[in-house]
């Protein structure tokens, strides 16, 4: 089989954050030290080779970049400062843009203007909706408090409406994500054209997907246990919030102030804490740059951290203002909250950083499928 070399690929990859692609002299130290690299699924060295030579097809169909959890061991021991860990990270950004058929992902990763513009437009739409659209349906800003002295949030942002909106947004995002995952599946499993995987294998290995999503065991295999913990907190906090807001908003967004130990509040507090803790570790890490994975921050990394932090902070403010009966403060934080949250979800989940939440466990699933793949019978 002939291989097409596309050296111009390197210039593209530079936009996704690869630094010195030429530094590597192929000693293999990184592959040997990587706790996640295994027989049949070697990385990062041979991916760097593909990058240097511009073997685009093989790069695009490789699952390995997703198996790297960026512990940074390889970067630490690389004798040429080639930074293999960051090269893998950049490859993941590149692959995300390749899975995405809309082309937006690529735009967001390579152009700050596009990303910022997108955020501003959607933030503006949200503000307009709250100021003009909802009031047109008779909902109002009222300073009248409930009997308990809380703000009547549902009077200006009724949960039924918000939930419909949440659902539709979730549907859009899910559609995009699912179609991207299908593309990922096609590229990794079918495109190489050499092997085939049985239906039964698909079913049998599916449980792995669930397990990997919940526990993230590969992450803990990377040497740094503390980081696994904070990442786990961040992830679980995020998931809980996502579920209660999208599925159980009626239960979550009440005007009544529930007792402190009510699950609505404890669950909310836990999720908030998880998010804050994870964010705190990540932000401090990126500022201090001690951990290798935090040493090189792409614009998209910062943007995401900032947006998520602002979302959490405005969320906390809503809660505080509401139970203390500060109506206007509550409304303003609510609108701000939504104005940040909506563009963040729309960008991050299908197109950018948070898509790895889906790609990662699927990659492990696909890896498993590949292990059981059998050579394809040639078309006779």
């Amino acid at each position, binding site marked *: 089989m002939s291989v097409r070399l596309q050296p111009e690929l390197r210039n593209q990859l530079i936009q996704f954050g690869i630094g010195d692609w030429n530094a590597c002299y192929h000693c293999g*130290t990184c592959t040997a030290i990587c706790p996640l690299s295994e027989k049949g699924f070697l990385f990062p*060295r041979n991916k760097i080779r593909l990058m240097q030579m511009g073997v685009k097809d093989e790069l695009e169909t490789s699952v390995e970049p997703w198996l790297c959890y960026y512990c940074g061991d390889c970067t630490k021991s690389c004798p040429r400062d080639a930074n293999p860990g960051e090269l893998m990270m950049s490859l993941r950004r590149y692959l995300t843009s390749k899975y995405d058929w809309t082309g937006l992902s690529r735009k967001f990763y390579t152009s700050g203007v596009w990303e910022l513009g997108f955020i501003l437009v959607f933030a503006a739409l949200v503000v307009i909706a709250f100021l003009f659209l909802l009031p047109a349906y008779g909902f109002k800003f009222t300073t009248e408090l409930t009997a308990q002295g809380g703000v009547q949030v549902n009077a200006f942002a009724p949960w039924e409406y918000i939930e419909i909106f949440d659902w539709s947004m979730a549907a859009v995002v899910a559609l995009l994500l699912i179609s991207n995952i299908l593309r990922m599946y096609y590229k990794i499993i079918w495109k190489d054209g050499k092997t085939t995987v049985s239906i039964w294998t698909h079913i049998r290995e599916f449980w792995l997907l669930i397990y990997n999503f919940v526990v993230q065991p590969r992450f803990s295999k990377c040497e740094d246990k503390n980081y696994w913990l904070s990442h786990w907190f961040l992830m679980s906090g995020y998931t809980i919030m996502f579920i209660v807001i999208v599925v159980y908003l009626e239960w979550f967004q009440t005007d009544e102030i529930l007792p402190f130990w009510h699950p609505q509040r404890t669950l909310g507090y836990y999720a908030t804490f998880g998010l804050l803790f994870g964010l705190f570790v990540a932000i401090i890490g990126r500022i201090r740059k001690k951990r290798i994975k935090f040493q090189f921050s792409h614009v998209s990394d910062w943007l995401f951290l900032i947006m998520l932090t602002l979302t959490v902070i405005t969320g906390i403010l809503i809660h505080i203002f509401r139970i203390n009966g500060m109506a206007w403060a509550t409304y303003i934080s609510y609108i701000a909250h939504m104005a940040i949250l909506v563009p963040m979800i729309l960008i991050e989940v299908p197109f950018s950083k948070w898509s790895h939440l889906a790609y990662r466990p699927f990659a492990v699933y696909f890896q498993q499928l590949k292990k059981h793949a059998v050579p394809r019978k040639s078309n006779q």
Partner: protein
Amino acid sequence: MKKAGSTGVFIYNPPIAIPYPFDITEITCYLSSFPNVVRIWQYPDFPWSEKNLVKMITEHQLERLVIVGVLCGTVKTLFSKAMTLAGKNPRHVYLASFDEYGIELTKDLDRAKSLLAHMITDIPMEVNPAGIQPITQPATLVIGGGIAGIQAALEIAYSNNTVYLVEKSGTIGGKMATFDKTFPTLDCAACILTPKMVEVNQHPFINLMSYAEVQDINGSPGNYTVKILKKARKVNVQTCIGCGTCAEKCPAQEPSEFDFGTTMRKAIYIPFPQAVPNKYMIDAASCIYIKNGKCRACVKACPVPDCINLDEQDATVDINVGNIIVATGYKPFNASRMAEFGYGKFPNVLTSLEFERLLNASGPTGGNIHLRSQDKKGNWIFTADTPKPHRIAIIHCVGSRDKNYNKYCSRVCCMYSLKFSHLVMEKLSDAEIFEYFIDMRSFGKGYEEFYERIKSEEVEIIRGKTAKIEEKDGKLFIRGEDILKNDLIENVVDMVILSVGLEPSEDTAKLSAMMGIPISEGGWFNELSYDIEPTATIRGGIHLAGTCQGPKDIPDSVAQGSAAAAKVIRSILKGTVSQEHDFIPQEKIKSYLAEIEK
């Protein structure tokens, strides 16, 4: 940077002098490119009288005068006086004297320009006068008694000139003395080296000072005064018969320096049986008598009266030499800096130099390869009582070609690793050997052929460096990528040899400061010119030989030893030391000038 004041230039070339070797318009063009040069006068159109000169100086508001050419010293007084009369500083008369700065030939044009730039801009540059200095001391000092130092010392001594050979340790021979065989010829190292070492000791023109160090160097090229610290051997080198009775009785033990700590020696010891001088010595740091005032077991045992003097103190001597050859060699990279390989933690992870001792027929195991074990006191030593290893891994480039340690390639480790593979196959016929390399550097004469030969000897040569060694039940686990097979190999071996790189020896920085010769990137002594003056340094009369100048193998070290000796002999024969080095390249001058412009 301060700008030099307006300058008048006088090009002087009286008919009695030798004519300029190059076109004078080149010089005038170059001179007029300096903004502070107000006017150029050319001989004989000079304002010759004092009065005319004063007029010129005031008319052109000259602050400085530069006289360029040959024999210009003869007219300096006239110009100084004129400056005084014009109310200017009489010291601001500068001589760019071609004869004084050794500018004689057409090829010296660049040198001439350097000199002019210096004089016109008044930027301090190290253009020293006197290209040649007389040598007043015919003797030569050689620092370091490795193969390079030995070679240089012998060459000079055979030209009937005195050599002082100062060796830091108790014996000459350097690293080569610890080897069994040398690549690529697989010659017996001792068979080549020992006769040379004995020659050094017996040569009437060589004054061997072992266990000695250079403490201070003063003076100028051709006439250096060197202070040498002779550490107390506490055994009389003249009378000791080398019988070894003393060591048998000595109760104190220390790891042997010569064996790189893989055997134990007594406090009174001989570095190795063929040491030169072949005499015993006392290590004051481990001698019980010196520490506690009690013992003297050796003195009681020694059959030669007054041979051992435990109270002998270090002494210093001053010697005068005309030339110095530095041949201080290298030290191995400290493998414990790379914690991932577990050197110093796992007994059977060895450095290459330790392994050389294991291979050596006169080494601790008689040349048989055995696993390393611990003695009662916890020292990791080689003995012939332990089992032999079956699977041995050799890891290349340890500490070399690595930005975290040394960036350079150490040049010899690929070849000695191949040599190891061969010698292991020879000694352990059932052994399996794995060599992990990145690139195979077999560049010398016969080296590639040697590599081909080893490849045919069933050595597993794997492209891909390993990253980590782990130990479990005495077995060593190595994970590495086989790049050519695109596979991950998890290997279990009994012994790992780390092919450590070469680093400049400990005293390099100290000696560099003492002698005023610079150190290059990587810490090696800097030669004057890599291509054409590989043994000279920027200081006249100081030469380099062997690995102190950069990693190299034995043939290259020997060649450089001879080359440095040739320079010294030339200097002794001519009675001069050359100093052509103070020439500053034009690029450097350009950058100086650019800085002034700012």
